[in-house]
């Protein structure tokens, strides 16, 4: 075990993956010698050489198109998009190509070895081009997995599992947690399962579902609710696609209430999908309407960031409304 922050855990996962499999290559803007603007790829070029860890020209479209070709050849690319907000220039390559390679070729070719890493999310005074949470756009495309860790331990285990998964994975890193805290992370190789949620806290009155940095928000809101005698069950989805509907459904059948929290705008956000599924599978168990505490349906603001965020106070109030319905 070692104490690592989230960035160090990612770095450690990349080192493990590159040591273990020569086909693994890590690249993106500023990723080479400098180690990326957040330094997640520090020392990789020194350790593994410029052929396996390198800077690319400044083109997200180029990075992902290149990665698709590389993956379809059998290499194992781990491509970095510097900020989630800048994944959109690569949208066509991801949506029409990465995700559909296998399907359209009848399984002859695929981008299954590709992992795309990108920091996402707000709370860092980054304004609307350094704060977006684009998971829902990608959840709408069949053919790839979406994974989001909430702490250093998860980051390493989930990233290793993503790199080795037979499907292309979009691995989204909550950047406000990058250096927020350190925790125990095994130095050895380990994987955490994709598509499986993590029950963060057990409870009996209401189920709170979230992912990434928002889990902390849920925990704080749950503490406030506990003072009112409300017992919250907190579920970290960890994978947005495929998502662990079973874990959520089981929990809601027990608690009778559900609240979903995410930073992305509410309309068309992934909370809608969860809410629809849960009302389908738990209709007779529900004692209150499903609550969503999300970002507003506006671009991500700068000066009004605090107001925009689905924080613990908004979450706590929504818990109360749900309990008192």
């Amino acid at each position, binding site marked *: 075990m070692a104490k690592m922050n989230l960035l160090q855990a990612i770095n450690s996962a990349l080192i493990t993956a590159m040591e273990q499999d020569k086909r693994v290559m890590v690249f993106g*803007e*500023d990723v*080479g*010698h*400098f180690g990326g*603007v957040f330094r997640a790829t520090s020392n990789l070029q020194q350790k593994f050489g410029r052929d396996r860890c*390198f*800077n690319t*020209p*400044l*083109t*997200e*479209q*180029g990075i992902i198109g290149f990665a698709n070709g590389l993956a379809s050849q059998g290499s194992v690319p781990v491509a970095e998009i510097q900020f989630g*907000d*800048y994944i*959109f*220039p690569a949208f066509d390559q991801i949506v029409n190509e990465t995700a559909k390679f296998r399907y359209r070729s009848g399984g002859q070719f695929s981008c299954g070895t590709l992992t795309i890493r990108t920091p996402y999310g707000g709370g860092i*005074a*980054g*304004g*609307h*081009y*350094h704060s977006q949470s684009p998971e829902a756009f990608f959840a709408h495309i069949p053919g790839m997995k979406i994974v989001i860790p909430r702490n250093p331990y998860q980051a390493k285990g989930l990233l290793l599992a993503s790199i080795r998964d037979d499907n292309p994975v979009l691995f989204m890193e909550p950047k406000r947690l990058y250096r927020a805290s350190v925790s125990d992370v095994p130095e050895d190789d380990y994987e955490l399962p994709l598509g499986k949620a993590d029950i963060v806290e057990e409870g009996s009155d209401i189920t709170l579902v979230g992912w990434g940095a928002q889990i902390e928000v849920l925990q704080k809101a749950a503490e406030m609710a506990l003072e009112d005698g409300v017992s919250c069950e907190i579920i970290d989805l960890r994978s947005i696609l495929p998502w662990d509907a079973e874990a959520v459904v089981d929990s809601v059948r027990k608690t009778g209430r559900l609240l979903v929290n995410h930073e992305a705008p*509410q*309309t068309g956000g992934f909370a809608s999908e969860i809410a629809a599924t849960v009302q389908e599978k738990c209709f007779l168990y529900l004692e209150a309407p499903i609550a969503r505490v999300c970002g*507003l*349906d*506006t*671009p991500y*603001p*700068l*000066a*009004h960031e*605090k*107001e*925009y965020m689905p*924080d613990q*106070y*908004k979450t706590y*109030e929504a818990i109360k409304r749900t309990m008192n319905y």
Partner: protein
Amino acid sequence: MQDRNHLARVSTTHQVNIIENGLIDIPMLQILKPDGSLHEQAVEPDISEQTARKIYDTMEYTRVLDERMIGAQRQGRISFYLASTGEEAAVVASAAALSDQDMIMSQYREQGALAYRGYTTQQFMNQMFSNEKDPNKGRQMPIHYGDKELNFMTISSPLGTQIPQASGYAYGQKMAGKDAITICYFGEGAASEGDFHAGLNMAAVLHCPVIFFCRNNGYAISTPAEEQFAGDGIASRGLGYGVKTIRVDGNDPLAVFAATQHARKLALDEKCPVLIEAMTYRLAAHSTSDDPTGYRSRDEEDKWRAKDPILRMAKWMKQKGWFDEEANKKLIESSRQAVLSALKEAEKVAINPIEDIVNDVYSEVPWHLQEQLENLKSHIRLYPQMYPKTSGRVK
């Protein structure tokens, strides 16, 4: 129907004939020597004393602004800043060759062009403090300026997006019969984006009066130019797209001015795009979030410090008898004062009222945003202490 022949301009050869980069030589225009005298055979552009001084003063002003704002960022007064140190001539002298009616679409390191157009110190500060007087209503990070009156398009962070937009804007100007062009600034890094290729091709084919102005400053954050492109630069790409192209010493204000003047005339008279590649160096860190000691040497920087465009211009102006040392010192001092007091002023201004979180998403606020705003306001009323910057005005 017209009979078209796309081979009409293609010559033939009977040996395998590979054209390598380097065979097409695109020389770099230089007019001023580092000592302030003219290169032999160089022709001084048609520039008045008044314009020369304005260019010079704006470069000095920009440098003062940059120094002070980097300081302000270190003190935690603003969250972020990007300096143009070392590149002032490329930006200011090109802007000086334009008409005020020309649209400027910039990347983010072109504060000098905005200053040249007359953006005030207070306006710079209001944007950087994202306060209520910021025309962007506090929605974007510091340095994302924009001013409709000054024909300066509001900056967007995603790189390269302004390049095809500039083609479209210029086409619109042409169709509206305007006596104006568009200039579009970007870095050699952004020239790798797909938008660059799309934008140049559109402009060339649709005959758009636009100047694509590339600041080739050697770095895109930590990525050196040799890891950005394999050719000799960006200029050769202009030729590939059929765009008239000129390469210029970006640290030579006279060369930049002359090149841009020519390019503007061409764009306007012939209704065509022109690519200018200004060869310069990003002396500053990429931004206040960056540490260049991690990827380049002090030695390398010092070599470029010796090519400072401001010094070069000062030497030339001295030779012309257009430079007053005392007045210059006073100007720098008064700029420093002006920045400091405008900064203090901007710090005092409140942020926008909470209603502005939903305004401008659409032309009118639709029902669902109205509802979200009302919910947000009730929530702020419940927890006023948690949202101190807005709660005072939520009644």
